[in-house]
Structures are given as C-alpha cells and as structure tokens.
C-alpha cells in the first residue's frame, strides 16, 4: 500500500472537519464503549475477535477525530485513546471498515445509545477514499460504472443480445408475439432498471419481470443508456463518483419522461436511488419506488393473480438490509409471498432484525472472500433451521451471496427473486 503523505492526511481529516450538520459530530462523541453491540454483528459472532465489535469500527474513526479535533485528544491522547492518522492506522481502518463490515446497520438498531455505526463506517470509508485507499477491486467496479455506464462493463451489443433473447423466451412462453421488452420509449408510466448481474448472470429474472409487466398491462420501458440501478461509489465512499452515477439516473428519467422510476430487486440500488441519490445531486428524484412495492400494488389492485399451488415446497425469505432495515420495505414482500406460496416460513430473526447475507457493503466486489464465507455461517444456519427448499430475496446481490452460501454450506435450496417466484405462479388471462 502506498505510504501516507501530509497531503493525504489533510484530505482524510477534511472529511471529519467539514461538518454539514450535527449528525457526524453527534456520532463521533456518543459511543460509551459498553460493548453491548458485539453480538449484533455477524463478524463478531462468527470470529469472536474483539476488533470486530461494531464499537471498535466506530472508535477507529472517532479516535482520529479525538486526536485532531478535541482538546483532550491533543493534550492527553493516551487518556482517550486518540490515534494518529498514519500508515498503521490506515491498514487497520482499511481492514475493518472495508474488509469487516457489510454496512448492514444491524448494530445500529441494537446499540444501547443509538449510535449510527453504519454512518460512521461510511464516513471512515469516505476518509479512506479521499486518501486513495479504496480496495482495488471495489474501485474497479466503480470505474467500470463510470466508464461504461454499468458496473460490469457489459457492452451495448451484449446487452441488446441478451434482451432480444429474453424477449424471444417470453414470447415463446406466453405464446404471444405482443409480449415485448420495450426499449428507450418516451412517456411511459414506468422506467424500469436492472442490476447488471441480471443481463450478465441471471437473465431469466429480466423475462420474469417482463412477464409481470405484461400480465399487469403496464406501460413500461427499459433504457439501454442507463439501466444500472447500482451505485458502488456509495460503498467506496467517493461522493463525486456517487453524484455522477446518481445524476445519470436522474437525467435518464428526465430524458425518457417516465412517470416513475421503478427500482429492480437490489437492496443497495434501492437505497442508492430512493434515499441517497437525491442527496448526492441535491435534488429530489421524480417518484421512485421499488419493484417489490409495485408488484404488491398490482396484487392489491387485482392486476395480478397467482396460483399458490404452483409453488411447491416450503418458502422462506431473506431480508436485504438496505431495503428492509435501511429502507422500511418490510411488509410488501411478505404480502406478495402469501399470494404465491402456500407454505411460507419466516427465518429467525427476520424483518428489521434479520442478519445480513454477508455480501453487502461491497463485499462481493472486494477480495475478502474467506471472511465473507465465514460470516455467512449465520445465514446458512438461519436457512437450514427453516427447513425451506426455496429462499426468496428481493436483491440480486443477496442472490449471488446466497448462491455461494448454498454451495459452500451444502444447503440444497433454490434461490429466487420476488419477480421469479411471482412469474412462475402467475395466472394469465
């Protein structure tokens, strides 16, 4: 790793110095080191290492703040463990904030004080980004999005080929040449987005959603220019990169003049566009909802009908952290599953208390793979205990991690998105 310089230190400290409001100052002064958050974090639970306690990740950032911005930290750093920003601290910061946190926010809800631990970790990542210490593979994902318009650098040609193929599949399945995947159409009600994992690895989820739109007689379109729902700069901590990506989505909505933006099944993408995006560009987005909310609304309005007998076996649900704990979408996916599955069982714990799959926070785009699979033990056990044969999750990132968990922990389950399980159970009139 490149040695730290005075300029880098200045850049890192600038992040702590530039207080836009009272939130950061509050978080940096609130933790009382009670340690009661330890058991809420999948990293501590699976490693039992003290350094993995969420409070320690907060303290990594807060201790630097104390050293440079408080009188006690300047006069008596040893008293309050005020740390210098040097090469050793950078190594620890990188390992803990990038390599040991999925930014799942589970510890936040359970903290005895109410410290927004995830927010402090995100601030620490921003410090590291401003000094040029974003892990290479994560930065490469962001760079791909900046350069090609999607984080997997899928070429336009490949993307169009995949969509054409999916459209043919859809028409064959429905035996209806009018079942289409509309592209770049102006003035539609819905501008739909995708997680690039879909065209790259799971194209059937695109045709599943197209089937749902077809059944609901929706007026919709996809954009070939800006369809990527993700914003990995949210995880890398670079505000300018986050802004550029969010602005592109905003511009494409304006360009196509759709009534609402519908976010594909992707927890962090939902967060990045519904909640963070407007703050990156300092402008409200037009109406933005998740596809989970939209599908639930279709069922409620009678635009979709399903036969739950078509779903065989026990179904359970994994809650993507950013959608549920960080986004308040808790009931819609459960309502949908009750329409399409006879035997639905909850994991323990579930809802806003559910554990992260281990793939969040950019972990799937970084090289901490052994650790990522180690922390996944908790999710594997949660799934095993339900006895389910199908695990549904409204997030393609989680699908990826759950598929790896399925293989590593020999769970022998099927992993599906909401759109996939709904599409398979639809009654088409």
């Amino acid at each position: 790793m490149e040695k730290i310089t005075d300029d880098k230190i200045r850049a890192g400290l600038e992040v702590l110095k530039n207080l836009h409001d009272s939130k950061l100052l509050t978080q940096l002064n609130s933790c009382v080191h009670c340690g009661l958050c330890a058991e809420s974090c999948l990293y501590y639970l699976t490693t039992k290492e003290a350094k993995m306690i969420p409070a320690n990740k907060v303290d990594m950032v807060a201790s630097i703040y104390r050293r440079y911005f408080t009188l006690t930290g300047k006069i008596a750093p040893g008293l309050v463990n005020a740390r210098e920003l040097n090469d050793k601290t950078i190594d620890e910061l990188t390992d803990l904030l990038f390599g040991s946190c999925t930014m799942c926010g589970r510890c936040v809800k359970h903290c005895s004080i109410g410290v927004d631990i995830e927010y402090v970790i995100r601030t620490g990542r921003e410090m590291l980004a401003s000094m040029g210490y974003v892990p290479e593979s994560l930065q490469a994902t962001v760079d791909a999005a900046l350069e090609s318009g999607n984080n997997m650098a899928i070429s336009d040609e490949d993307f169009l080929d995949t969509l054409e193929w999916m459209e043919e599949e859809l028409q064959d399945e429905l035996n209806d040449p009018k079942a289409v995947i509309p592209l770049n159409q102006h003035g539609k009600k819905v501008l739909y987005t995708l997680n690039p994992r879909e065209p790259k690895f799971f194209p059937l989820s695109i045709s599943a959603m197209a089937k749902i739109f077809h059944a609901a007689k929706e007026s919709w379109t996809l954009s070939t220019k800006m369809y990527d729902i993700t914003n990995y700069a949210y995880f890398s901590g670079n505000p300018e990169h986050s802004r550029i990506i969010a602005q592109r989505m905003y511009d494409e909505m304006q360009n196509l003049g759709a009534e609402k933006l519908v976010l594909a099944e992707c927890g962090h993408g939902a967060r990045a566009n519904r909640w963070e995006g407007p703050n990156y560009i300092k402008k409200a987005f037009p109406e933005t909802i998740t596809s989970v909310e939209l599908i639930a609304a279709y069922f409620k309005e009678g635009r979709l009908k399903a036969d739950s007998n078509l779903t065989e076996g026990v179904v359970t649900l994994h809650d993507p952290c950013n959608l549920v704990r960080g986004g308040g979408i808790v009931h819609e996916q459960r309502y949908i599953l009750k329409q399409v599955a006879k035997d639905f069982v909850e994991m323990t714990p579930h809802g806003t208390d559910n554990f992260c799959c281990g793939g969040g926070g950019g972990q799937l785009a970084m090289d901490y793979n052994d650790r990522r699979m180690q922390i996944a033990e908790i999710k594997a056990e949660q799934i095993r205990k339900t006895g389910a044969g199908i695990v549904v999750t409204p997030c393609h990132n989680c699908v990826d991690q759950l598929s790896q968990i399925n293989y590593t922990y020999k769970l022998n389950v099927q992993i599906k998105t909401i759109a996939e399980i709904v599409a398979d159970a639809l009654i088409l009139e």
Partner: protein
Amino acid sequence: MHWYQWIASGAVAICLIVFATHFVRLIRLGSPKDYSKKAGSPAAGIVYSFTSAMDPRNKESAFLHLPIYTAGIIFHIATFASLITFFILLANFQPGPSFQIAAALIAFSGSLAGLIILIKRSLDKKLRWLSNPDDYISNLLVTIFQLFTGLTLLLPVLYPAYMLLAALLFLYMPVGKLKHIIYFFAARYHLGLFYGWRNVWPLRKA
C-alpha cells in the same frame, strides 16, 4: 458558603459552560437536510426512538445482556438521583430523614451497580480491549461520587470531602465519555429522524 462549596460551584459552572458550548454547536449545525421524498414521519420516528426503540425487548444490547443492562439502568438512575441530591446539599437545604434514607439507598445501589460494571469492564476480554483509560476513570469517578452521596447523607462530617469530590467529577465530565449526557439525546434524535423519514420507525411487526 464555605470554600469547598465555592470550589464545587465553580466546577459546576465550568462544566455547564462547556456543555452549553457543545449544545449550542449542535443546535447551530442543525439537522441534516434530506432531499429524498419523505416516506414516513420524522416526528413519530423521534418519539419512537426515545420510547419503544428503548424497550429492552426491542434491543439485543438489553435482552441479550439483561444483568449488566439492568446494572447500567440502576447506575444511570442513581447518577441522576445523586446529582439532584448534590445540588440540594450544595444549596444547604436540609432534606427530611425519609428523603435522606431513600436517596442514600438509591445512591448506594448505583455505586454497587457501578462497581459491577467496572469489574465487568476489567475482566471481560473484549471489553478490556475496547476500553481506554477514560472509560475506567469515568466509571470509577461516578461510582465514588454515588458512594459519597449516600455516605454524606448519613454522615454529614463527610460534606467537605464530598464537595471536593463532586468538583473533581464536574471538572472531568467534559473531558471524556461522560459527555454522552448530552450526546445520548442527540444520537437518539438523529436515529429517530433518519428512520422516521424512511418509514422504518415506528416499527410495524413483520
């Protein structure tokens, strides 16, 4: 007023001035501006943050650690009770015997709870690793303050020593983690605002 009361009063004044500075800074900095479209009620989120979200049944930090959590609650209640008692004694009010006994009992329970928390911090490997000297000093100072509150109510001869001890506590309060007397409220406010805006809080059962 005796000299030791002057010292204690001076320390209280310094502490209040520093805390007021923190408070004014927080107010001046204000709440974050959120450009996203609000989905819930920030006000309801804030109320929830200070009420149901603090319910021990809703927090793993409480229900997974009931004995130490209970000790913490007793410690904090006793701290506030001891602070009130201190101001009563500083102002030379003569509380009645039943108040004295009740206040002393609360203060002693608090100091016992404080001692338990201190022992846990010293013995638990992960907590020891997380702790800095200020964590031990803050815990110890408050524990001794509570002990002396109780003792002074029963043995008035300790009054001068109690005033000096209180002065030390008030001078130390703005130095380290005891600042959470202010920041705790700010943290819960921000959390309520954040989750309330996104309609995560108030929580509806999944």
